[in-house]
């Protein structure tokens, strides 16, 4: 088959853009696809056309994002934004719905750089309008210029807590409370390793000072136990927990709030390697099931590379460096970079990435999955939002013999809805793992196209009945 490019990169965040740029510099023809209108991914997301952000509101992420976009624009990388990739097949053919309809791209090499999504352990009321993800809150604050509510509780774990709360305060909003699963001791323990990134540490301290000045209550070692309201968030109840997120029985508190921004860490969005049947391993330190890779992102499927938080959660800058390494590896594997040049160029990038992974390790520890929180869920708590599947139904299916995650899906419809199991998968797998012994035994959702639901109107376009290539009828 005639090939469109030497390399297709899916995802134009820091990892994908760096991979595309590095491969392109070696003379490879590169197609870079992303569903967003401009490169940047989630963290370096570009402000949408029409909205401009005053310089005083711009931080390091905005500057790095602009630099990334300038680099892509100045390069020979063929950038295709607004591409909703829905099918990947045939080593490698990528089909994407664009504004113009479905388009196919082919290349012998593919870099998957699709980023992470948030983990959220359910609680009563978590499905109510007004409850949003921490990452959602950053999108609203940074690229929509909005605060999530008039009074917001910010809860969960990791550095996004302070980032989101500080940005709400800076935007003139009210933060009712910051509710952190970690305790001061956990943060203190992380500090020495966080010092390996003075830039980020300084940023974090800035957020903390901002919250202190605004007298925002910060509750350490607490979790949200419920959200209540008529048809949306009105009040958030929190209670103290131990290091694993178990309720200690201590006094609970109620905060009036019309919004709750909450997240319990990040999970690699490894849908493309899963779709292509690459080998995976359960890697809690990477956020969950992650594709098996060598140091340069090469997967078990020939020609497939996985980089960034979609392969192992580590943050934006390590993602950029892992993308850079994979781009070099692609160039080497395609014969455009001599082994010596590859080693020379890769060595310095690797050293920098390894240094940054120290910080990432500390953060991942703060954002780690806490299975005890899942085990404590009440039977009536909804686990699968798309299909309204409750914990009790999942337990009943396990009692009826469900032993791995896809079988559980068949028994309950958990994970069968349009989010394709991204919202419920971690919780359902944790529940099943209690019975079958390990997350490895539970497995993961089988990768299927489309990567995200796609409107048939866009995918099918206009057509004549006579042009449908109907195959030969089956025998009578």
């Amino acid at each position, binding site marked *: 088959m005639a090939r469109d490019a030497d390399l297709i990169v899916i995802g134009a965040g820091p990892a994908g853009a760096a991979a595309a740029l590095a491969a392109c510099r070696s003379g490879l023809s590169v197609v870079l696809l992303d*569903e967003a209108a401009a490169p940047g991914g*989630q963290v370096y997301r570009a*402000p*949408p*056309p*029409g*909205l*401009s*952000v*005053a310089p*005083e*509101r711009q931080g390091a992420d905005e500057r790095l994002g602009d630099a990334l976009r300038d680099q892509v624009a100045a390069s020979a990388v063929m950038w295709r934004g607004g591409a909703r990739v829905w099918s990947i097949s045939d080593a490698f053919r990528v089909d994407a719905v664009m504004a113009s309809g479905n388009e196919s791209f082919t290349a012998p090499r593919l870099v998957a750089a699709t980023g992470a*999504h*948030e983990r959220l352990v359910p609680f009563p009321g978590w*499905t*109510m*309008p*007004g*409850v*949003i*993800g921490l*990452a*959602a809150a950053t*999108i*609203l*604050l940074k690229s*929509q*210029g*909005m*605060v*999530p*509510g*008039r009074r917001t509780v910010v809860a969960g774990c990791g550095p996004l807590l302070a980032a989101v709360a500080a940005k709400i305060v800076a*935007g*003139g*909003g009210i933060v009712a409370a910051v509710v952190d699963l970690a305790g001061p001791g956990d943060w203190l323990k992380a500090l020495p390793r966080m010092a390996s990134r003075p830039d980020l540490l300084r940023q974090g301290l800035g957020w903390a000072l901002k919250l202190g000045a605004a007298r925002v209550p910060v509750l350490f070692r607490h979790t949200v136990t419920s959200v209540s309201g008529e*048809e*949306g968030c009105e009040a958030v109840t929190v209670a103290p927990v131990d290091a694993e997120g178990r309720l200690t029985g201590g006094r609970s508190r109620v905060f009036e709030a019309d919004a709750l921004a909450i997240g319990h860490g990040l999970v690699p969005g490894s849908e493309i390697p899963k779709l292509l049947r690459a080998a995976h391993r359960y890697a809690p330190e990477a956020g969950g099931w992650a594709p098996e890779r060598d140091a340069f992102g090469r997967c078990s499927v020939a020609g497939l590379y996985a980089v960034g938080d979609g392969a192992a959660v580590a943050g934006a800058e390590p993602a950029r460096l892992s993308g850079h390494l994979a781009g070099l590896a692609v160039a080497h594997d395609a014969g455009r970079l001599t082994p010596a040049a590859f080693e020379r160029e890769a060595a310095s990038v690797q050293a920098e990435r390894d240094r940054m992974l120290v910080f990432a390790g500390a953060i991942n520890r703060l954002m780690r999955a806490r299975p005890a929180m899942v085990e404590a869920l009440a039977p009536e708590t*909804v686990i699968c*939002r*798309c*299909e*309204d599947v409750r914990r009790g139904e999942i337990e009943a299916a396990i009692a009826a013999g469900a032993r791995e995650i896809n079988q559980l899906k068949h028994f309950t419809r958990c994970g069968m*809805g*349009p*989010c394709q199991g*991204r*919202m419920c998968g971690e919780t359902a797998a944790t529940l099943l793992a209690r019975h079958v012994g390990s997350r490895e035994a539970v497995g993961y959702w089988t990768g299927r196209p489309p990567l*995200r*639901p796609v*409107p048939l*109107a*866009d995918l099918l376009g206009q057509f004549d009945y006579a042009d449908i290539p109907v195959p030969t009828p089956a025998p009578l």
Partner: protein
Amino acid sequence: MTALRIADGFQRGAAVTFEVDGSPVRAHRGETLAAALMAAGIVRLRHSPRDGVARGAYCFMGVCQECVVRVDGVLRQSCQVGVEDGLRIELRGSV
């Protein structure tokens, strides 16, 4: 309810008007439909299939599928659609 739009530091795009279940809603070019609906106080976008309880946008990044509405007749994620003059939005209701 423009209370959620941050006043300082953001230069917003031109005003646009779209229709939600027949009523006009104003927003600014550059806003996603999901954010514009939230800013307009419209947070209940659909009802869940079995329990019939209200749901709203959760992830704002294309993952959760909670913000799906009917845009000019077609089901779409409102967080992935930019506002435009004249869009006709129907909230999904329970299916």
